[in-house]
């Protein structure tokens, strides 16, 4: 993929993430300040498909956005070759995607 495409993907994923990060932070603040128990939180996140859908989108955006940025940082600050940097970025993206989706699955309540 060309650098220009990666740049565009990073910007577009940032565009998606920006409001989601705010909402995500709001949810965290609300959940911890309101003193909700783990069960109460899980009951809420599993009560509607909106939360799993929201967080699936969030995870997808992160899995696109973060590896591209990580790749830029590694390329600039390390002597790893282009192939090495790409491999690390793709690997990191894949792990983020898997762990993220696994977490979404866990809080969705669909498994139980």
């Amino acid at each position, binding site marked *: 993929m*060309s*650098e220009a495409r990666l*740049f*565009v993907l990073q*910007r577009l994923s940032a565009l998606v993430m920006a409001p989601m990060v705010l909402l995500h932070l709001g949810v965290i603040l609300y959940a911890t300040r309101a003193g909700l128990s783990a069960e109460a939180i899980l009951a809420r996140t599993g009560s509607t498909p909106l939360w799993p859908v929201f967080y699936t989108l969030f995870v997808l955006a992160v899995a696109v956005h973060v590896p591209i940025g990580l790749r*830029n940082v590694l390329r*600039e600050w390390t002597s790893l070759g282009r192939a090495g940097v790409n491999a690390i970025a793709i690997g990191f993206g894949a792990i983020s995607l898997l762990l993220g989706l696994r977490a979404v699955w866990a809080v969705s309540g669909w498994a139980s």
Partner: protein
Amino acid sequence: MADSNETLTVRLWRGDATEGDYHTFTVPRRENQTVLDVVTEIQRRHAPDLAYRFACRVGVCGSCAMMVNDTPRWTCRTHVSKVAGDGTLTVGPLRNMPVIRDLVADMTEFFDKWQKAGGRFQGSRTRAEPMAEVDTTSKARRHADASIECINCGVCYAACDVVGWDKDYLGPAALTRAWTLLNDTRHADQRGTLDRAMDQGGCGSCHTQGNCMRACPVGISPTGAIAGIKRMSLLDFLGMRGR
């Protein structure tokens, strides 16, 4: 006004590509003295073998750029009174370029990167055809106007920290050149220039620190040009790039 008895202590880089250090010279302070005057005086009276570049002495050619007190400047347009308040001056070759000798930096890579960034104009008309009409009030032309006064002095390139640590980075001047071409309706290879300016080492590598913009002697904003190319690339991807 400077007293004729006053002197100026100048630390001047002497050396070549492999080694060198700063040598100290003492020169008289004079009225309306520029840094280039000081360098010339040192060459005439103290170090006849001193290598340095200049041509026009009036801020047109851009060949006398050097590091003055660690800041890249046109030495011909820098008054000593502005930069040597404490009576000392440090002059060295432009940063981020290999040294040839003394104050002369090798600008080969700087110019090569112009080509790498797609800075070569490509016309589409023959001389038999009428001249292209450029709408001077158009947005594209205004963007081009804002950057077209670049004379390749290399000051922005020396001011840029990213150039210093990322050898692939094309630098502010080359990308500013690309931006003028992308806003030139006569330029036929728009695609090639946009692709090259956005390729590895292109606009994506810029950290938007703005050193280039602050250092530019003619007041161009390469930072703005790079932001413009990024914006154009995004709109191009979305199929919304207007001409």
